[in-house]
């Protein structure tokens, strides 16, 4: 039975945790690291294969274990939706384990990372397989706790501890809202299994409240604005393979939670739900990428970019909700396929980018882009795969990012059929926001790749960088090859998503397997189509023909010399553009309004030989308008309530007496 095999695999992963502790005392160098990551790789690949077979099989299998609550047990199920997300989770886990086989050797304190890593993978798998609210929430909490432990692995840095604190706070808040949501869904009967919840039809008010709670809970874990504040703090703090898992995989588990609750358990959605999801998605997309453009830390850029992509995914899911609430099943299928394809794509290229950032961190010792530069000469292979990742995330054909973006735009073009006025105004606005975020993402990744890898080295650390080891490179090449394949042969992936989409949206996209020349057609043949393979072949042929013709018929000689630079004598690597200066035009156009960005020049008094300094001042609008007032309010309340600590015994007794009397009154009056 598929579920049972999967559960055995997950148990194996969980057992690797204590095994890593035991192996930690082994004197052989890197023994614990090799064994843990190696076995995680094997088990993840096995789980991925099981999930793939289950996806093609389109059968759902369940099992109930006598664990957990005595009257409930622990239900686990693998249906189409679960199998797709299991593929995503385990593919990400396998890639991260392969990368960590090489990267983990540089870890200073492996005993703080190794025990938690396999348990983290196991918890994520369990969340996806859970079939009742209790196992879902327990696995969700395990996922949060183990990732928290991994975030504070490098505890000497104060900012990592702060990141862990904020992360724990937001994760607890998310779990609280999910707990309330499941409580509302289970109703007064208290049957927490998903089958029972699916059969019950809650009242409209209860469904609306559950939807808002579920969106808050899963959205905060996924990184939707305005609940994203923990993400750019926590993701960079963890070791790079864990960051890849958190950004690439854990956020997708949160998307799974949203899909499961809103699309599966809640039944038919109301029309205004989609407006909320669309608005949050569009806002996250634009704000995420604008934040990313202001950062100097490479991993923080990637973390904010995750927020942007989650915004794109939620915008597509919002469209699917809108179509589903109007009963347009085929359009909902198109939007849902676009969202799920982007889930898969983002897991791939975000992991690739984090692997690259981890290799850079190991090679140069710094994540600050302003200290890097010229690394394309010292680390050519890393540069190549990082370039593939940057091009994929900027939605450039013929890679995979473009296909999911194209499908999202095709879904937007079907939306004039929606009758609601709110949607008629919201969808073009969200379309414009998505287009804006795509263009800004390209700018962001030109900056990330160009400043880190191109140009000249800005510090001695960058001059002495070396390629990472073969295993890390192999992981990056494998993921890059998958990105290219998904971009060139998207029809195959779209067809694999059909059972998932059929279950959630009630319709599916047209069968892509039979289309001529392997194009994809989202609506019908002859309507709109895209062929990634042909574009790729044309690009290679034209480039090759041009290169061959020119080298044969014209000239192929090369001379080297100093850079021209309009004839100015070159003062050195400090004259080239920095990350801040590259972002200056965009900061000036968008940042003055959004971030109150100011450039302040501090000039020394005349006669002083101190240098002038240019400072860029940015304000985080969401932190200042949402989080700081709440934190201040909590502080204030805590201070006021502190008086309760210092009352006399008589006051305490009177408090107890008053509380008792009030409760009795309530019992007396309650009808």
């Amino acid at each position, binding site marked *: 039975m598929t579920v049972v095999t999967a559960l055995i695999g997950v148990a194996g992963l969980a057992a690797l945790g204590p095994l890593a502790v035991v192996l930690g005392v082994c004197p052989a160098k890197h023994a614990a690291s090799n064994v843990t990551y190696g076995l995680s790789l094997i088990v993840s690949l096995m789980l991925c294969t099981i999930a793939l077979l289950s996806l093609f099989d389109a059968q759902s299998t369940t099992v109930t274990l006598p664990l957990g609550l005595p009257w409930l047990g622990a239900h686990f199920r693998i249906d189409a939706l679960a199998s797709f997300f299991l593929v995503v989770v385990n593919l990400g886990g396998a890639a991260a384990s392969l990368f960590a086989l090489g990267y983990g050797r540089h870890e200073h304190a492996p005993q703080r990372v190794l025990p938690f890593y396999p348990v983290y993978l196991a918890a994520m798998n369990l969340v996806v397989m859970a079939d009742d609210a209790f196992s879902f929430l327990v696995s969700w909490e395990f996922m949060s706790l183990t990732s928290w432990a991994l975030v504070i692995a490098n505890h000497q840095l104060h900012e990592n501890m702060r990141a862990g604190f904020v992360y724990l706070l937001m994760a607890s808040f998310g779990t609280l809202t999910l707990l309330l949501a499941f409580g509302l869904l289970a109703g007064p009967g208290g049957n927490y299994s998903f089958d029972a919840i699916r059969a019950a039809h809650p009242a409209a008010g209860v469904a609306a409240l559950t939807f808002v709670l579920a969106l808050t809970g899963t959205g905060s874990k996924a990184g939707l604005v305005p609940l994203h504040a923990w993400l750019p703090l926590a993701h960079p703090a963890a070791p790079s393979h864990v960051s890849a898992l958190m950004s690439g995989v854990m956020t997708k588990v949160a998307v799974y939670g949203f899909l499961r609750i809103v699309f599966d358990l809640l039944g038919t959605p109301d029309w205004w739900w989609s407006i909320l999801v669309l608005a949050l998605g569009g806002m996250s997309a634009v704000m995420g990428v604008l934040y990313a453009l202001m950062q100097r830390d490479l991993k923080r850029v990637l973390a904010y970019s995750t927020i942007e992509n989650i915004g794109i995914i939620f915008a597509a899911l919002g469209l699917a909700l809108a179509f589903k609430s109007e009963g347009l099943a085929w359009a909902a299928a198109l939007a849902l396929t676009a969202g799920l394809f982007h889930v898969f794509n983002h897991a791939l290229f975000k992991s690739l980018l984090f692997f690259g950032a981890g290799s850079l961190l190991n090679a140069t010792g710094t994540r600050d882009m302003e200290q890097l530069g010229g690394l394309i000469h010292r680390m050519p292979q890393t540069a190549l795969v990082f370039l593939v990742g940057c091009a994929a995330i900027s939605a450039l054909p013929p890679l995979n990012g473009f296909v999911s973006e194209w499908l999202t735009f095709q879904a937007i073009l079907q939306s004039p059929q929606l009758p609601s006025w709110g949607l008629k105004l919201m969808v073009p606005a969200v379309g414009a926001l998505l287009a804006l975020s795509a263009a800004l993402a390209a700018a962001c990744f030109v900056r990330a790749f160009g400043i880190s890898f191109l140009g000249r080295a800005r510090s001695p650390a960058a001059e002495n960088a070396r390629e990472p080891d073969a295993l890390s490179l192999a992981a990056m090449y494998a993921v890059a090859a998958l990105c290219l394949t998904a971009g060139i042969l998207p029809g195959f992936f779209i067809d694999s998503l059909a059972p998932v989409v059929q279950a959630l949206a009630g319709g599916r996209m047209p069968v892509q397997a039979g289309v001529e020349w392997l194009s994809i057609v989202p609506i019908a043949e002859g309507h*709109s189509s895209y062929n990634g393979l042909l574009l790729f072949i044309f690009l290679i042929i034209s480039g090759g023909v041009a290169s061959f013709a020119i080298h044969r018929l014209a000239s192929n000689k090369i001379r080297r010399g100093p850079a021209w630079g309009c004839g100015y004598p070159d003062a050195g690597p400090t004259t080239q553009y920095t990350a801040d200066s590259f972002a200056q035009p*965009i900061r000036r156009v968008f940042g003055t309004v959004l971030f109150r960005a100011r450039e302040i020049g501090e000039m020394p008094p005349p006669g002083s030989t101190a240098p002038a300094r240019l400072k860029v001042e940015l304000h985080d609008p969401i932190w200042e308008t949402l989080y700081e007032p709440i934190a201040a309010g909590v502080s204030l309340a805590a201070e006021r309530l502190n008086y309760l600590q210092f009352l006399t015994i008589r006051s305490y007794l009177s408090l107890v007496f008053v509380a008792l009397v009030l409760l009795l009154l309530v019992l007396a009056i309650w009808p």
Partner: protein
Amino acid sequence: MAVIREIAFQGMQMLLVLLLAPLLTGFVRKVKARLLRRQGPPLLQPYRDLIRLLRKDVVLADNASWLFRVIPYFIFAATWIAASLVPTFRSGLLFSWSADLIAVIAVLGSARFALALAGLDAGTAFGGIGSSREVMIASLAEPAMLMIVFTLALIAGSTQLSTMAAFMNSPEVGLRVSLGLGLIALIIVAIAENARIPVDNPATHLELTMVHEAMVLEYSGRHLALIELSAALKLLLYVSLIACLFAPWGISPPSAEPILLIGGVAAYLAKLAAGGILLAIFETAIAKMRVFRVPGFLGAALMLALLATLLRFVSRSF
């Protein structure tokens, strides 16, 4: 047999755009010069420039990487393919269904991504100026272009260029407000994307005014020839795009009758000439904008295109 004929037509289009691109650039320069009461360079001068550059050695900066050498070929391939997919004298070419208008724009976006990287590769300040300004302009021009695509797709019912051209040529299209808004926005975006006055000056080499020229400052020899040819192809692409979407009269339908094809080619040449003259007049009549007024200009295009899309969403008759 029919397949071979279709491949021949597609090949003809590819050759036609390649050969006409430098001629269009030369024509615009000639008209501009004549408007300024100068003789101007000969019409075929761009061809001579390209041949001269192709024969020269390439001088590479010391720290230029393999990416720097590969990028001109990639940009040329991408722009050539994009230009071959826009209907010029005949719609419904063999491979026109492999990429719709959104894909054409994205392919041009890849070319721009590569060019911005090339600007950063040499490690000088000028490349950085060009790349940072280029991505700022792109961050507004690309969304405006996508909104224009949405407007047109909502009117024509498909994002496929041949379908759009056929619809615009049919009597059902009527005179619509959103088309007017889209045309104005498309002209603004075309000017920005092709680095024309008032957004950028294609003839300047002053560092404070360069955008496109700053990114290609370090290129020489055959690399520079390819990049200039790509810029000419991009201008041809945008003029052809405006012509096939807003002035589609004369485009031959998918058939093989020689009279229709010759008519299509003649109409296309006439449209190119008209576009070139209008562009030259426009460039001569106004001055280049300060760099930080360009976002306002492009923002206006984005707003117009957004308004056009909004109107199409709100009612079918707009």
